[in-house]
């Protein structure tokens, strides 16, 4: 019986924590989760700067420095390249989040949702976060070699143009929906 009580206590504690989290995270969402912010961020993928990043990470420079015997400079270069790779990884995360926000806006305004599509997106988000953490740890540990990033660029920037057009139409609908809340009500509405 005491085991049942412990398990129920843990379950109830979890439920109350989730309840508090969902009801009190409105401030964070106010800053980044609103429709206008989601709409503004679409179409500005960080991977668009990939050519410059690739140029900065070219292996030839490192090889040249090694051959020239500038080992200190070479190590500094490696360190700075790692920072660039980390920054780029962070930027990819922002692109991923931007796509997710956009998908949520589309889902919110849609009169019908595909459960399969939504679950697939949830699964992808969890998988991405897991891989992201792994890559980050690998980069910090100095394990990772410089990756080829061109394909990453295509995966995001190709879609952003298409989304930009769709978002213009959806944005008008979002504005219409916002207008349907009276000004007095809107002042009291919080994002959960």
């Amino acid at each position, binding site marked *: 019986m005491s085991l049942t009580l412990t398990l129920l206590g843990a379950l109830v504690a979890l439920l109350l924590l989730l309840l508090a989290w969902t009801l009190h995270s409105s401030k964070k969402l106010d800053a980044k989760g609103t429709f206008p912010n989601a709409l503004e961020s679409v179409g500005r993928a960080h991977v668009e700067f990939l050519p410059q990043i690739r140029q900065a990470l070219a292996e030839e420079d490192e090889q040249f420095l090694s051959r020239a015997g500038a080992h200190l400079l070479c190590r500094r270069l490696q360190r700075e390249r790692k920072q660039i790779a980390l920054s780029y990884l962070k930027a990819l995360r922002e692109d991923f989040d931007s796509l997710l926000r956009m998908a949520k806006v589309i889902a919110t305004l849609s009169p019908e949702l595909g459960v399969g599509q939504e679950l697939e997106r949830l699964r992808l988000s969890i998988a991405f976060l897991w891989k992201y953490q792994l890559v980050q740890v690998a980069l910090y540990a100095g394990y990772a070699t410089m990756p080829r990033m061109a394909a990453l660029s295509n995966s995001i920037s190709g879609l952003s143009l298409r989304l930009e057009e769709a978002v213009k139409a959806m944005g008008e609908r979002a504005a219409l929906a916002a207008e349907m809340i009276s000004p007095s009500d809107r002042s*009291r509405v919080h994002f959960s």
Partner: protein
Amino acid sequence: MERLPLLVRWTWGVSVAAQLVLFAVLLVRGNFRRVPIFISYVVANFMQAVFVYMIYNRMRFGTLNSVVLAWSSQACIEILRAAAITEVLRLLLKPYQGIWGLGWRLLAGAFGLVLAVALIAAGHDFSWALALADRGIHLAFGIAVVACLLLVHHYSIPIHSGYKALLGGFCFYSCSIVLANALGGLLFVQGNAHFQTIWQSATMIAFVAVVLVWATALRLPLPQRIQPVEPQQADTTYWELSPQINGRLRELNDQLGRFWKPEVTRH
């Protein structure tokens, strides 16, 4: 005649007074028009409190007749509670038809699953089964409300503070009942003479707290009902873009998985 302990009677009185305050707030602020099922739930709760108090005062406390009558009235309250929760969630998600479609399925699924498990586990002993079934129902309420709130949070849907208080109150009360029932059961098994007093006081104190929170939150008028946006292109846009977004996310995921593998970059 076995009477209710003084502490329970006092808490009972405070509970009835708090419900009257909530009822008055709902009437004065006009919120009863927006949440008619919720006000029915409040009225039914008040009537049940009076009804059960009369039963326990006229009949011997704990007799089969008093237990059957009290738990029968409780069944009506549980049905109204489920309806009131659904009403609030519907008001919240009505403008978002797609998410409401997903939400009510989630609510029904989570509630049905947990309730089924709880009822199977309840067993056949009448009084014991009632307590376990009650605990199961409240666990199902709690899980269903949190599941829907997670969905609302996931899609960044705005929630008015009044609705936050209503849903939070329902969930908190259900969680309190689950714990109180489990604790009461444990004390009963251990032969504690005061298990009834502790159980009843715990459940009623939690209820009074929730009713007072509701009364405070509902001093402000709830927002007008928002009509759903008429679907024009959104239905086709979702089905057109959603698979593409998922495809891109999948590609991004696959490539991230190969991030540290050395690859040839020479042309």
